[in-house]
């Protein structure tokens, strides 16, 4: 167990190191924040002065070394545009992002689990077909499209829910649905196929031979076994819900990390870009580490070595 964790932490550090390095160089491919800051009529001297005062005129390797050593001190640099530490800028959005991700996850699971169970148990029936068809529609509709349709229906026409913004739990509903729809579809499908596999296992037959009803056999013997492959995907999805909400946040004016990423990109705010990438990567690896650990809880056969 400790060995496992030590090894995984090692991997995590390695992955984050690579991500930090790659992002450092990749953001510099995409252009320069100084050019974005200044109006087009700025003169070359003005540009040079600003660039120098931000330190972007130093040799690349120099900048890289100081960035990496900064990271060791948990210094993620100063956002060029926001004039504040990049870490602070991210930390500020975190609660909103977490709210949305949690709400989306709740929606995802609330939809996916019943849908997966019903269609697996009623495999091949009309119920299965219609559930899976709706799931596929959910999976093949881009988020920006779902979002705007929801807004038109529920905010403009029905006026049940606010179109955008934050503040109350009601504000969470539409973005959470938009964000969770794709994951819900994917998890429902996965749960279905994994449950179908599990339902064919001998121990389900054993349970039925004991006198359990079909439903009880599914819930008390099937679900936990079927959840193993699903948990991996849920882990990956949590990562993407936390970071991949760009389109949804855009449509619903949700002030989360996704939009911050877009802002950092449009401003070419190097330190902020680097910091968001690193943050998203860190969330991702940590969530997946938790997923791996949760296997040990879910499955007594798994020994973390």
């Amino acid at each position: 167990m400790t060995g496992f964790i030590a090894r995984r932490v090692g991997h995590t550090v390695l992955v984050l190191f690579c991500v930090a390095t790659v992002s450092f160089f990749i953001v510099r491919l995409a252009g320069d924040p100084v050019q974005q800051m200044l109006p087009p009529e700025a003169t070359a001297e003005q540009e040079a002065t600003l660039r120098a005062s931000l330190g972007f005129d130093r040799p690349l390797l120099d900048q890289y070394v100081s960035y990496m050593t900064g990271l060791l001190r948990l210094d993620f640099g100063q956002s060029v545009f926001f004039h504040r530490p990049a870490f602070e800028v991210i930390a500020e959005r975190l609660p909103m992002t977490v709210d949305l991700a949690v709400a989306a996850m709740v929606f995802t699971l609330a939809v996916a689990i019943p849908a997966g169970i019903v269609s697996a148990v009623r495999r091949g029936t009309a119920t299965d077909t219609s559930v899976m068809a709706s799931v596929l529609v959910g999976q093949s509709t881009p988020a920006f499209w779902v979002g705007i349709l929801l807004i038109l229906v529920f905010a403009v026409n029905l006026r049940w829910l606010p179109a955008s913004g934050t503040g109350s739990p009601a504000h969470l509903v539409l973005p959470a649905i938009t964000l969770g729809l794709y994951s819900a579809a994917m998890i429902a499908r996965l749960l279905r196929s994994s449950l179908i596999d599990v339902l064919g296992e001998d121990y389900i037959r054993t349970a039925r031979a004991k006198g359990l009803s079909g439903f009880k056999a599914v819930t008390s013997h099937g679900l936990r076994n079927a959840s193993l492959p699903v948990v991996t995907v849920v882990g990956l999805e949590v990562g993407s819900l936390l970071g991949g909400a760009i389109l949804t946040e855009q449509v619903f004016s949700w002030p989360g990390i996704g939009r911050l990423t877009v802002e950092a990109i449009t401003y070419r705010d190097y330190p902020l870009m680097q910091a968001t990438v690193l943050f998203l990567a860190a969330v991702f690896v940590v969530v997946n580490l938790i997923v791996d650990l949760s296997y040990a809880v879910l499955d007594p056969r798994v020994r973390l070595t």
Partner: protein
Amino acid sequence: MSEPLLSLRGVRKEYTGHFGRSKVVAVDDVSLDIRPGETLGLVGESGCGKTTLTRVILRLVEASAGEIWFDGRELLGMGRRELLSVRENMQVVLQDPYASLNPRMRVGEIVAEPLVTHGRVRRGRAEARSRVAELLESVGLEPGSQDRYPHEFSGGQRQRVGIARALALEPKLVICDEPVSALDVSIQAQIINLMKRLQAERGLTYLFVSHDLSIMRQIADRVAVMNFGRIVELAGTEELFTAPRHPYTHSLLSAAPVADPVVERTRRRIVLRGDPPSPADPPSGCSFRTRCPVARDECAQARPPLEEAGSPGHVAACFFPVRDAAELVS
């Protein structure tokens, strides 16, 4: 007596788990000789190391220690090229006729594969087809089966394909790892007869692994009994069945049911107590002692060496060899 075709000396194989998982000694100090033209049977319970031993011989897994001499050459130190030439003379038939054939290859391709790999024929040539047809015929399959896929065959037919593949290179030694245990009884006999016939026709040497003693009695010339990675008894087949010395051999013989209700009702059985120990945590001394009806304190102290027991060529590894089965029945 002729030179042995295959000689094992002190062969050992340990599997080490990742990151501190306990190691398993799957094959422990095995020495054996197989003479040209004979069938050496290897029996033992599940997990005793039979498969591992065959894989070590085939160099599919690397031995941890020991020497393996095949046809006068030492295998374990060989390079890739040299090994390829040895493989022409040493082939394998595997246990599961469903898993041992690539489901995406036609039977013809499967049988031709050794020929292609060893450069004997070119893939898809007429020459390859006719050679494959011959081989299929010799194992009792229609030559026209070449273009069909394995799933179109029954288990017995598949095992015949597996045998044809093993024979393609005309090897001297065929290692058979439980070739019939996945088959139905009515089919087992077909395959055993086939293997015996091929041996007679081609002068093959078999190392025949099984856990089924009744099959051993039909096919083997000599039988080695394996327990916990070690050979615990080795004797000519009849001698082993009629006068076994090791209590483990006794228990195996006694446990195997006989298809005759009259015999069964009168038989006196040795029912072992307890479960086989875990390979990761073997008992000290003799590894059978925890279940042995006649174990004494000495058995925990040291490992009994494999020693001559009774007639020549009969060896057993027991401090207290059994002379009369009655001793064992409680």
